[in-house]
């Protein structure tokens, strides 16, 4: 179980530019839950993700994974528990390494790395079967450089890489946002498949309310660094975008949402 207790994040505290990105986020995520997070620009989605991945430490509050306090663990230490798919398809892999080398990096995620050869016939075979699941023919291109692939292909491999080793949680940071609609749909479908097959606990940040409702088992919405609503189970069944907007209005005492990007997508 992942627990966030009263997480606050303030940038530039005490200066005129003080920004309170997170103002007391408390969230319990059960093992096996697939949480989608929505919110407009500046609502704190990215900051929340960064505190979970270890790229930023909260100013207040703590994060527990199965009772272990990981609040101040550096990213590299957290990698044994948390895997991540970035928004930018170029960020999640190394373009001048080959496909198999990239996968070998993920194969040892969070483990100590020794002087034995990074690639063996054994793990190559494993990578091949994994790649074959994508149905993109990449299993025949193991020694091609990552840079030769398209954004969608790279994102698909990033997904595979994130699930190559067991993780307590997988973080998806608007990972379909930089792709064309058709590829985005493919990657999203793949995401659901991988999460289901590996019974992963996931947190997916998205810009689209539609997408947030279509996938996952639970949806939370952030606004100005706070959780404005948190729906799951029966309450979430049959909700549509306008219901979400109503929920938002109720919880914000009548203030309505003015982020076109969020409404239109």
């Amino acid at each position, binding site marked *: 179980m992942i627990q966030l207790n009263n997480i606050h994040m303030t940038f530039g505290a005490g200066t005129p530019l003080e920004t309170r990105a997170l103002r007391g986020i408390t969230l319990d995520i059960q093992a096996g839950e697939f949480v989608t997070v929505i919110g407009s620009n500046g609502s704190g989605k990215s900051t929340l993700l960064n505190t979970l*991945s270890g790229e930023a430490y909260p100013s207040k509050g703590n994060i527990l994974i199965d009772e272990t306090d990981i609040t101040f663990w*550096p*990213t*590299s*230490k957290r*990698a*044994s528990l948390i*895997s*991540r798919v*970035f928004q930018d398809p170029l*960020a*999640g*892999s*190394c*373009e*001048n*390494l080959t496909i198999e*080398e990239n996968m*070998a*990096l*993920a194969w*040892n*995620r*969070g*483990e100590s*790395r*020794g*002087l*034995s*050869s*990074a*690639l063996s016939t054994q793990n190559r075979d494993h990578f091949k079967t994994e790649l074959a699941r994508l149905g993109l023919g990449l299993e025949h291109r193991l020694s091609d450089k990552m840079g030769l692939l398209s954004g969608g292909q790279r994102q698909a491999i990033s997904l595979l890489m994130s699930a190559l080793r067991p993780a307590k949680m997988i973080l998806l940071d608007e990972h379909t946002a930089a792709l064309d609609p058709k590829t985005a749909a493919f990657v999203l479908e793949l995401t659901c498949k991988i999460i289901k097959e590996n019974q992963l606990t996931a947190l997916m940040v998205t810009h689209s309310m539609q997408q947030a409702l279509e996938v996952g088992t639970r949806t939370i919405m952030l606004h100005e660094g706070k959780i404005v609503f948190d729906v799951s189970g029966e309450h979430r069944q049959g909700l549509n975008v306008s219901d979400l907007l109503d929920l938002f209005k109720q919880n914000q005492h009548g203030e309505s949402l003015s982020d076109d990007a969020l409404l239109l997508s």
Partner: protein
Amino acid sequence: MSSIAAFGALESGLVFALVAFGVFLSFRILEFPDLTVDGSFPLGAAVTAILIVSGVNPWLATLAAFFAGLLAGIVTALMNVKLGILNLLASILTMIALYSINLRIMGKPNIALLGDVTVLTPTESWGLPYYVATPILFAVVVLFMFIVLLKFLNSQTGLAMRATGANARMARAQGIQSTKMIILGMAVSNGLVGMAGSLFAQSQGSADITMGVGVIVIGLASVIGGEAVISPKTMFLALLACVVGSILYRFAIALALNADFIGLKSQDLNLVTALLVMFAIVAPKIKPAIKASIARRQR
């Protein structure tokens, strides 16, 4: 070019192949512009020279040079990752500090090794002329380091190091401690350069405080020149490119300085070096540019 000059070019080409390996590790693998080498090269020479004149086994003295270079690399890396000093500046600081340290180690600006036992002494009994025996011995050393480095770069740790240089954020997300990798890479890089300085001093018969000037440019020229000749698609090819680039560079210099019709003298060495580096950088871009201009004209 006489055969002695050719063997001489081969010999220094092989010594500087070790420098090229080091520069390849820092500039290419870690993307760390490292000028420490201008200090760690004479550091290796100084350590070896002082140990050899005090009667230490020359191979041990060479190993000591490797470790001295290792330390120099660690200092630069620590300044960068722990103190947050810009990588290039950190390396310049170590480089100038090493000038004083090298003088302290040697106690004087120059130590002669003539008549002392060096790693080259056993080759005298091979029955070959000295200018043939030396490159053979150095080729063995370079081959050994080549194999060790190749194994390392393809190991789990080596792969982690390559990922750190290519995409540090992704590397961290995979659980790689990027600071550790930078320290390790810079250590090995400068260790290799220290070893090169040691071998160079032993083959030249002296260690000199000024022998490090421009080593980084020669190392870079070798790496870039090698890449222009051999496309570094795999680690094997990349390391091979370092060796080939280093030897080619030495031959290019020897040819330029020995060709009477051009009229260059040995004092023109640095000018020729700079021009060669410039050419090696520009050459790979010329071909596509010519193709593009032909394509434009045909339209």
